[in-house]
């Protein structure tokens, strides 16, 4: 069995599920796509830009994020920020995540 392949597949699935929580949590303040990529990288979470950009757009269409273009600077940038609905969703999902990971830790320690 190719363990590395299986493990990397599982990691990919785990990351896919938690990525939304990460993005929502960072966008409590306005950020543009690449600044979010960098912010996550600074916390040792490496997410590719080609995943973040489409994801932010999807979350915006779901009403969890809002965006606006800032054309005043030399480079026009699209800034994203969490909406009120997004904040409620984030609060609920964070609560679930903490509960779930606590239980998971207990099971893994057994």
């Amino acid at each position, binding site marked *: 069995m190719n363990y590395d392949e299986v493990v990397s597949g599982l990691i990919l699935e785990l990351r896919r599920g938690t990525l939304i929580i990460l993005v929502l949590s960072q966008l409590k303040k306005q950020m543009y796509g690449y600044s979010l990529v960098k912010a996550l990288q600074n916390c040792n979470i490496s997410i590719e830009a*080609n995943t973040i950009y489409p994801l932010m757009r999807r979350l915006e269409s779901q009403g969890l994020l809002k965006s606006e273009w800032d054309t005043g600077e030399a480079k026009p940038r699209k800034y994203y920020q969490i909406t009120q609905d997004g904040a409620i969703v984030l609060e609920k999902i964070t609560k679930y995540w903490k509960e779930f990971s606590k239980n998971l830790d207990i099971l893994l320690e057994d």
Partner: protein
Amino acid sequence: MKNDLVNRYIYAVTKRLPNNMKDDVASELSGLIEDMLTERCGEVVPTEKDICIVLNEIGSPNELYEKYDVDGKKCLIGSPYYSTYKLVLKIVLVCVAFGMTLSALIIQITTPNAIWYENVLSWFSMLWFGLISAFAFVTLIFAVFYHKGINIGNEFDLNNLPAVPNKKQVLSKKESIFEIAILILFFVIFITAPQIFGAIVDSPTRIIPIFNVDVIKGTWYIILLFTAMGVIREIIKLLEGRYNKRVMIATIITNIFSAISAFWWMSNDKIMNQEFILSVSALFAKEGNFISNIFANFQYFFLGVILFALVLDTINCIVKSK
């Protein structure tokens, strides 16, 4: 900083995206590429190599397009239509192959002077053409169903779950399969060897076709419309599995179109073979006017039978759908 390569990359990502998001994604992507190049090169003007490295880092345009196109349906026919599509495709292909082979045999038998290998070759090319057309026809119907989101009631809502149908409301899968098979067989034989519908009137070796073979072959599109309506009606029945409002509306609409095509077809006064009408009328002249009249007005009799069957089917469907 923008150069031709960046423009081409952005174009490759956005060209298939919906118009309302195309420009926005293009601007955002352009900003991302600029940010990545600035990080890589600082104040120095990036070289072609730098641009290539950054674009490779972002990844293939197709992959990125697929991530943006979350609402797009990524296959031609997907769930919940795919299993019914496979079933209908199998029936249609088998019937086309069988019908074409039967037609080739009829042509061989009814034309005694024919050279057999020419008929085999013509059968083979007909079969090939027929199977490809049938495949395209069925695929097109299901692709339209899938992409136009024709609702077949697969959403889940506890409060709106339909009642369990009583025995009379359950649509028989076998009946629909049989109906599709008959429609396809009828269509294939009718347009390839309409002489099969004939009668031996005066001599045991000569069959007089009921219909004018050339006119039948020339009006294939009307027969195709008639067949297509029937097949669509049966596919909807297969998908729904029970009589309901959707089946009722689909049956009424397809039957109206079937009736129009039957009327269009039978109102052609050259559709019947005059030799057949004259021979049969003469044959039954002694038996009385009634039978003779039926044959003399055979096309209207035939149209009447089709319309009667369609009306009966529509009434049956309306009653059972209530």
